[in-house]
């Protein structure tokens, strides 16, 4: 693929881009001026629908369609809530976006609020990122002083107050209904759906929840049109996506890629991750945040049918869970042959046990079981039955909980066993090696044993 198009990050390298005047100098707030001065809210929604942009928080639901579902009962306020909770392991793109270019999100929030008819909107940011919250609040004050926020914005009669709300440390508050509970000052227990937030959301009023990156696409879409956006990317994966890469790659960090980029190019090209660290080889990838199925090298580079795997919603899920995964939030975690899959799976299982809100027993109890059994295996105390027990527990959590945290906990375990079962068995058969420092199941250890 040629020089990749940048929709979000084009000006991120500009000195002082976090300030309003610099942001404006590079085309900032032009999308907003166009939308508010020349378009109706319905037209804004239409452009977003045409763009085909899909939610960047993980589920990939078309943003314009979600906006279309928003109920509009007479005399009832509507809310827009931006999800900046970003707590899915491997994901740090929203952190990067908000910290680098707060005005991009703020401009997007104003455009989106205008489209939805919201007069008070919230940006919910995980509390650990207090320094980012301070950056956002400073930028909001600037925007307000410039007449982009407050009463009668740009003389259009549209009023908007923008509030940044800190979380308190809870992954579950990234789930949209838990986020709304949290924003109401409660524990982050997800709500039963229906009713959906579009009908009864914040304070029981119609509400749209969108991810930071989703909202940040709207200034470009306003300026260039939904049609132009829809031509970027591939098929139903339109536009660009921020990918946050971590693990054993030469250049970890946040990248904006055009959807459809071959995974192989993303990993090995110097323009992106630059390959695996010197002297090592790729073993496995978790492509879209800790929740999505882990894939071994051969299945992340190519589908089971031998087609090159692409960074797109469709291509990454090609083959279903048997041989595919998901784009998810774009948290791309690469692991080389020194990685112990059992240890990593245990680590993730501990995360989900720690973060389960405890409302639903399959998730509350199941995540605890998985963590314990995986701990046992990793520490050389497991037995043959443990592996099937894990598969069984994962199955019993999946689909049996109010919110998808249960699924998110089950998938990493189920997929690790699906693709790396022999490594789990090795831990059972060779407990002394499983606990030996530095001993990892790979081709060499296998050869020694045979």
């Amino acid at each position, binding site marked *: 693929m040629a020089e990749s198009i940048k929709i979000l990050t084009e000006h991120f390298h500009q000195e002082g881009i976090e300030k309003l005047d610099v942001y404006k100098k590079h085309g900032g707030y032009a999308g907003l001026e166009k939308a508010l001065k020349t378009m109706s809210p319905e037209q804004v929604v239409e452009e977003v629908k045409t763009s085909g942009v899909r939610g960047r928080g993980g589920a990939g639901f078309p943003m314009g369609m979600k906006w279309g579902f928003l109920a509009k009962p007479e005399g009832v306020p509507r809310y827009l809530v931006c999800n900046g909770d970003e707590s899915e392991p491997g994901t740090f793109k929203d952190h990067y976006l908000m910290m680098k270019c707060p005005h991009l999100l703020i401009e997007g929030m104003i455009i989106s609020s205008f489209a939805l008819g919201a007069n008070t909107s919230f940006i919910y940011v995980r509390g650990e990122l207090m320094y980012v919250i301070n950056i956002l609040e400073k930028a909001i004050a600037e925007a307000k002083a410039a007449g982009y926020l407050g009463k009668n914005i740009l003389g259009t009669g549209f009023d908007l107050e923008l509030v940044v709300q800190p979380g308190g440390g809870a992954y579950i508050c990234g789930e949209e209904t838990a986020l709304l509970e949290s924003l109401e*000052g409660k524990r982050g227990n997800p709500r039963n759906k229906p009713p959906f937030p579009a009908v009864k959301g914040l304070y029981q009023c119609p509400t749209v929840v969108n991810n930071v990156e989703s909202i940040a696409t709207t200034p470009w879409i306003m300026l260039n049109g939904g049609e132009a956006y829809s031509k970027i990317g591939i098929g139903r994966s339109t536009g660009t996506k921020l990918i946050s890469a971590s693990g054993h790659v030469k250049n970890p960090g946040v990248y904006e890629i055009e959807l459809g980029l071959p995974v192989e190019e993303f990993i090995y090209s110097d323009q992106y991750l630059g390959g695996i660290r010197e002297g090592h080889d790729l073993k496995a990838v978790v492509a879209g945040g800790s929740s999505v199925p882990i894939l071994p090298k051969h299945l992340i580079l190519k589908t089971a049918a031998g087609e090159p795997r692409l960074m797109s919603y469709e291509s990454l899920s090609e083959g279903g869970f048997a041989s595919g995964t998901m784009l998810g939030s774009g948290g791309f975690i690469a692991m080389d042959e020194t990685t112990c899959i059992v240890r*990593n799976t245990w680590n993730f299982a501990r995360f989900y046990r720690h973060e389960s809100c405890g409302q639903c027993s399959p998730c509350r109890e199941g995540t605890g079981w998985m963590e314990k059994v995986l701990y046992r295996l990793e520490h050389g105390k497991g037995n043959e039955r443990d592996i099937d027990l894990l598969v069984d527990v994962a199955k019993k959590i999946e689909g049996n909980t109010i919110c998808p945290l249960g699924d998110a906990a089950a998938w990493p375990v189920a997929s690790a066993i699906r693709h790396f079962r022999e490594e789990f068995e090795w831990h059972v058969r060779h407990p002394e090696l499983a606990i030996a420092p530095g001993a990892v199941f790979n081709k060499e250890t296998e050869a020694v044993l045979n």
Partner: protein
Amino acid sequence: MHNMTATVAFTPERLEKVKEIIGRYPEGKQKSALLPVLHLAQEQHGWVSSETMDYVAELLNIQPVEVYEVATFYTMFHLEPVGKHVIEYCRTGPCCTMGGEEVYAHLRERLGIETGETTADGKFTIKEVECLAACGWGPCFQIREKYYMHLTNQKVDEIIDELSK
């Protein structure tokens, strides 16, 4: 009760801030201010005591239990006294993949305490937390608002030296 309120009361500047925060939400929805106000309380006292929770309940005109159940749900709130510097390191997969386990072991050894403990001089507390959304910049920890990233054993030593001064 009155004495306690005196010790947990916000400074006048923070009281102003609380008023401003409450004003962000619609009439009658002042409970939404709970998380931001708890953060303010922790900023002032270093931790959140049950007396502080009662005081916050009074300020927001909600039941004390509504504050307890929230303060105990969210992991950022320290419900017991902590050291001057609370080091919260990320123990999650990607940071460990990027060398975290070794670096954190060095940190614990350097301070001579385990996770959850405070040094005898009351200077440092170590806490283990989950993913801080800085995975590719890991291993990492945070101390209050500040993120420390790309940690190595040497960097950890430098940070501790600096904060020990």
